[in-house]
Every structure is written in C-alpha cells, then in structure tokens.
C-alpha cells in the first residue's frame, strides 16, 4: 500500500518525465510534443485538485525524500499555501499548453519549446513543494534557466537582447540568494526551513538576519520585478512568444518571487513591523510607478508588462499589511492576476497571430473581425481595472478595505489611484485595438484557431465567476488555508515537525 503522501514528489517527477520523453522522441513524431505537453499539464492539474482535498481532510503532509528524516534529508511540505500555488501554476500552465498547440506553429522546433516549457513547470512546482532552502534555490534556477532560453525563442535581434538583459539581472539575483543561503547555513548549520526557523527563533534578532533579509529582498525582488529591480521585465516579457509571456507574467514571477518572499519573511524569520513596512513601501512604489509607465505605451505587450509590475505591487501591499484580511486579499489578487494577465497576454498573442502587429496605433475595429478575442479582452480588461462583478474588483476591494481597517489611509489612496489609472490605460487599449473604424488592411483578418479560442474562453469564464472563491464554503478549502499558513508565522516549524510520519 502506497502512502498518500507519495503524491508530493510526483509534481516534479511527472513534469520532468514529460520533458525527457519529448526530448527523446519528440523530434521524430511531430504530433507527440503537443499531446504530451497538454497531457502532462492536465495530469498535474488533476493532481493539484486532489492535493486540495487531501489537505482539507488530513491537514499538512510532510514527505521525506529517500526516507531520510528531517534535518539530514530533504523534506517536501504540502500545506495550504503550497496547494494554493500548485493550483494556480498548473491551471495556467494547462491552458497555456493548449493555446500553444496552434500558436507555436509559427515557430520552428516545437519540441524544444515544449521541453523547455515542461522544465519550467517542473521548476515552479519544485520551488513550491519543497521544504528545504537549497533545494528551493536549485528548482528556482531550473525555472529561471528555462525561461532565459524561452524568452529568446524567436531568435530575432531584440529578443536576444532582451534575453541577455534578463539573464544577467536574474543571475545577479540568484547570486544574492545563494549568498544569503550561505550566511543562513553558517549561522544555523541547517538547510531545512522548519529547522532553521526553530534555530533562528532561539537565537533571536541579529545582524545576520538583517544581512540575509537585505540579500533576499534584492534577490527575490529581482525575480519578482519589484520596482527598483524591475528593469528587465518590460523588455523580457514582451519579447517572448505570447504563451511564454503569459507564463512569465502569470505565474513565474509569483512562484519565484512572491511565494518565496512570503515563505521567508512569514515562516522562517517571522515578520515584524519594519519588514512589513519595507514590503508595503516596495509594493506601493511598484504599484504606482508601474502604472504611470504603462500609460504612455503603444506596444500592446509592453503595456501589459508594465501593468504586471503594477499589479504585483498590489499583491505585495496586501501581503505586507499582515492582517488576515490583507493577506487574503493579496493572495486572492495573486490568483486573479495570474488568470487575467495570462488571458491578456494570450489575447495580445491572438491579435499578433492574426494581424502580425503589436502596435496599438496600427490596429482598430478588430472587434468585428475577431469577436471572441475582442470579448475576452474586454472581460480581462475590466477585471484588471477592477470593475464589478469581475474577479479583479473583489480582490482590489479587499486590499483597499484591509488598508483602511489597518489605518493605512495613505496606502489605500495610492491603491485607488493606481486602479483608476489602470482603467484609463485599458480604455485606451480597447478604444484603439478593438473599437472604432475597421482599417482596410485588416479586412482579411480571421479569427484564431479553435485551440486558442478554447483557452481564452475558459480563462475569461474564470475571470467572470472568480468572485465565487470568496463564498465561505469554497473560501474554506482554497484561500483560507493558504492565508492561515502565513498568519501562523513561525509556528510553521512546529507544524512541519509534527507532520512527519
């Protein structure tokens, strides 16, 4: 009889298996990469829903790889936050792999694309499930290295340049993270996150903790593109093929940047008021500067990339508040942003697929020719701008209410302002791209193939009904366990130690 916790390593193993099989036989059988990519991500999605049930019924699961117990081996931890991130990552990955079946016909060597894509998914799943800080670094690097190559997948001049810039900045971030891990190891003599939390709690505050916090904010901030470290994002995200832009903006910066920051600040060192205000200031800066930079853009994908910076700011602001409502709002916005930003990038890809341009000034009236793309873009734009009843409205509302409740009226004001500016900039997109007069040269434009339509429609549906996640029964199994993990703070260590069978 296999123990139920054997499900945890499967998240990495299945995606790696898919990648390796594609790389061996994918170049001979042309249909195999498409099938394998969708099938693997579908299985992963199914598994993540199963884990949601498991955590709801049995509580936290801890898995010892190779049967080595906690301090000497690597442990994998499945708790509420992990389940939340797993569902977000695999949901988006599944729809993007379906979308890529048609979209990637415009590129050569599809099997390389799918291999790298699955490796990136494996890396993200690995980051999310692990309970060991060096292991987290290794999987973070897998996801990063795969994304460097995917950004340059088109091999045009500007793509190579953007990929180079991204690779250099991200590698510097990785070096800072590794340096932080060395300090932590020397200070605590362990690599397990739960064990480390215990040791740090005994030793109390010291200069090491401050040093490591600075290093990790720089390192993970570079991965998450918080404002002083955001320079790579507006180049890298638009240059990648559209499914990869969706993947990068939708989930990569979240699982590599935000999840890791949360885990470190809340569960390992325990949050206090100064760290909390650093996070909130960084979040607000990203929120406001991102949206101001976005307004002036005419390149569709570049505009979306700047909005990613801005929306990440909301998430960090909500999580940095530290109140239960703030954390729920932040996590909910994280999920919502994954959905609607992925959808918007897929839409921009569909427009580019059909017309061959990304310049908003050259488009116009595409709604008549591409009704489905137009409608889904409209839904996603209203979600991101925070118009009721779409999902973005609810999460922004919760974050603003949480700010007001915590007596942080200044932050609430900036959040509202950024939201209004977002609305303005998306009205511009809709006006120039989809409404208005149809230009003559777009008379022959056709709607995109069925797989792309399918992925966009389903994601749009999730945007419409996203608000139901707040209904108590559903909230109980999805959002609340995740926010509880953060609220418990350094009790995480006791829970993990208790969870070992």
């Amino acid at each position, binding site marked *: 009889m296999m123990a139920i916790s054997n499900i945890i390593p499967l998240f990495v193993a299945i995606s790696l298996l898919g990648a390796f099989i594609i790389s061996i036989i994918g170049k001979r059988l042309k249909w195999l990469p498409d099938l394998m990519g969708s099938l693997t991500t579908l299985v992963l999605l199914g598994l993540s829903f199963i884990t949601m049930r498991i955590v709801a019924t049995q509580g936290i699961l801890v898995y010892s790889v190779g049967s080595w117990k906690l301090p000497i081996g690597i442990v994998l931890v499945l708790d509420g936050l992990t389940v939340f991130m797993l569902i977000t990552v695999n949901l988006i990955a599944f729809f993007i792999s379906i979308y890529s079946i048609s979209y990637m016909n415009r590129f050569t060597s599809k099997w390389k694309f799918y291999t790298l894509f699955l490796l990136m998914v494996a890396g993200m799943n690995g980051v999310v499930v692990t309970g060991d800080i060096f292991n987290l670094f290794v999987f973070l690097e897998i996801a990063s290295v795969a994304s*460097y190559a995917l950004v340059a997948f088109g091999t045009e*001049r500007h793509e*190579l340049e953007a990929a180079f810039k991204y*690779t*250099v900045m991200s590698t*510097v971030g990785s070096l800072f993270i590794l340096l932080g891990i*060395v300090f932590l190891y020397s200070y605590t003599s362990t690599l397990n996150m739960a064990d480390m939390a215990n040791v740090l709690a005994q030793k109390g505050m010291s200069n090491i903790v401050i040093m490591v916090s600075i290093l990790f904010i720089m390192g993970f901030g570079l991965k998450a593109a918080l404002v002083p470290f955001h320079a790579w994002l507006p180049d890298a995200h638009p240059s990648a093929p559209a499914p990869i832009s969706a993947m990068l903006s939708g989930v990569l910066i979240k699982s590599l940047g935000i999840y890791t920051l949360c885990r470190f600040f809340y569960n390992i060192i325990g949050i206090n008021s100064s760290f909390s205000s650093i996070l909130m200031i960084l979040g607000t800066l990203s929120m406001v500067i991102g949206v101001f930079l976005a307004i002036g853009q005419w390149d569709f994908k570049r505009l979306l990339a700047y909005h990613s910076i801005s929306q990440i700011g909301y998430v960090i602001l909500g999580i940095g508040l530290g109140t239960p409502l703030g954390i729920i709002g932040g996590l909910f916005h994280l999920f919502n942003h994954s959905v609607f930003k992925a959808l918007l990038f897929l839409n921009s890809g569909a427009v580019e697929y059909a017309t061959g341009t990304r310049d908003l000034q050259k488009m116009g009236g595409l709604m008549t020719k591409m009704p489905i793309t137009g409608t889904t873009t409209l839904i996603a734009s209203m979600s991101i701008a925070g118009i009721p009843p779409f999902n973005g409205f609810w999460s922004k509302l919760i974050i603003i209410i949480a700010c007001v409740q915590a007596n942080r009226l200044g932050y609430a004001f900036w959040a509202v302002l950024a939201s209004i500016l977002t609305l303005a900039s998306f009205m511009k997109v809709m006006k120039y791209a989809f409404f208005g007069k149809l230009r003559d040269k777009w008379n022959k434009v056709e709607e995109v193939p069925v797989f792309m339509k399918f992925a966009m429609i389903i994601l749009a549906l999730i945007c419409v009904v996203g608000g139901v996640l707040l209904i108590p029964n559903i909230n109980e199994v999805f959002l609340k366990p995740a926010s509880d993990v953060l609220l418990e703070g350094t009790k995480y260590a006791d829970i993990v130690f208790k969870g070992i069978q």
Partner: protein
Amino acid sequence: MIIYLLCLMLFCCGLYCILRKRNIIKIILGIIIAEYAVNLFFILVAYRMGGRSPILSSGVEIVNMVDPLPQALVLTSIVIGLATTALLVALAMRIYEKYGTFDITKIKELKG
C-alpha cells in the same frame, strides 16, 4: 574574519564588473567571478581548523573531518554556474552575429 572580507571583496569585483562594464563578454566574466566568490565563501564557512577531507579510508580512524554538506552544495552550484555561462555565451555569440559588436551601448533597440 579578514578572510571572509577578502572573499566578499572578490564578489564585489565581479559585481562592479557586471554593473559598470559596457561589453557583453566583460559582463559574463563578471558573473563568473562573482560565482567563484560565492562558491569560495560556502567552502570557507565549512572549513575546520586542522581538518581532513571527508573521505574515509579503511582501517584508519579520522576524527576531525571538515563539513561535507557545503562541498556537496558547491558541486551543485558550480554546475548551475556552468549552465548559466553556456547559455550566456550562446546568447552573446548570437548577438554578435546580429549586431556585429559586443558593445552594449550600440545594442539598444529596446528602450528601458
């Protein structure tokens, strides 16, 4: 203490090179140097005064071996560095092919 500082100075040399040099190959060299420094730091914190390498031999009892865990981790981190370097060199060569130069002040199609 001073040895840690020397090691971090090596790291800062690499960092300075990444931040200030305007040549693609120089930036790659900066990354390599910074990686060396981090790896070295990891081995330094594991060293034990008068220690022995963590390899047992039959019949001899060795008591004061150095910490084997950081050595294993540094092996991993060297490989990660190699992977990143290979990718960066491939990108650099493609960029040279497209632009005919390694100078990043002349390679500026994207606005920041």
